């Protein structure tokens, strides 16, 4: 597709439920990023992939958060046993290679009730 595609756009989860958020980056983009954005704040880095390799996961807030990109294209961010503080917008972004301009998707809005 022309841009970064994310699904679902909106997700309401009950506390304790597991969720999976999908990202389809721009075709040919090697680098893929996940960010978390709280209301009224700037995006905060979660994790980074170069092709299928997860090179940086320093921003993942807890071991309940897990990301994968098994074939170097589509990525999934999984959150286990969701908590209310996980409610946020999860943004996926991609770039042709590291250091180049990063393009964002529309985000997945997660609300944990």
């Amino acid at each position, binding site marked *: 597709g022309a841009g*970064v595609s994310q699904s679902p756009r909106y997700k309401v989860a009950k506390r304790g439920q597991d969720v999976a958020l999908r990202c389809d980056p721009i075709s040919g983009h090697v*680098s893929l*990023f996940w960010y978390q954005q709280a209301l*009224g*704040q*700037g*995006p*905060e*880095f979660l994790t*980074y992939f*170069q092709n299928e390799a997860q*090179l*940086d996961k320093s*921003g993942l807030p807890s071991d309940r958060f897990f990301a994968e990109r098994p074939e170097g294209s589509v990525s999934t961010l999984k959150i286990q046993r969701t908590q209310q503080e996980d409610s946020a917008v999860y*943004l996926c*972004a991609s770039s042709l290679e*590291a*250091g180049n*301009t*990063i*393009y*964002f*998707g*529309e*985000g997945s809005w997660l609300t944990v009730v």
Partner: protein
Amino acid sequence: EDQVTQSPEALRLQEGESSSLNCSYTVSGLRGLFWYRQDPGKGPEFLFTLYSAGEEKEKERLKATLTKKESFLHITAPKPEDSATYLCAVLPMDTGRRALTFGSGTRLQVQP
């Protein structure tokens, strides 16, 4: 630790009233400074990348400038459609770190 501070947090302008948004940063070697625009319910939309002090870039009513400590986004004769949150982010020179560090943004409202 990289830090990005944007001011003001919110700005209300009348249509045609020019102004500037500020982005102050501290980073151990700047690889690039990025400006994005974010509309409500949307992802950030790329505007500019600046790489070195003294560099300027323009797009329509927007002009971004860069010094060694800060960047400005100048908005000339804004229109209501320029209303959005403007985000600034830095990418450090450290090749081991690929992620952008963002500020909290400036929410701009342009009234007709």
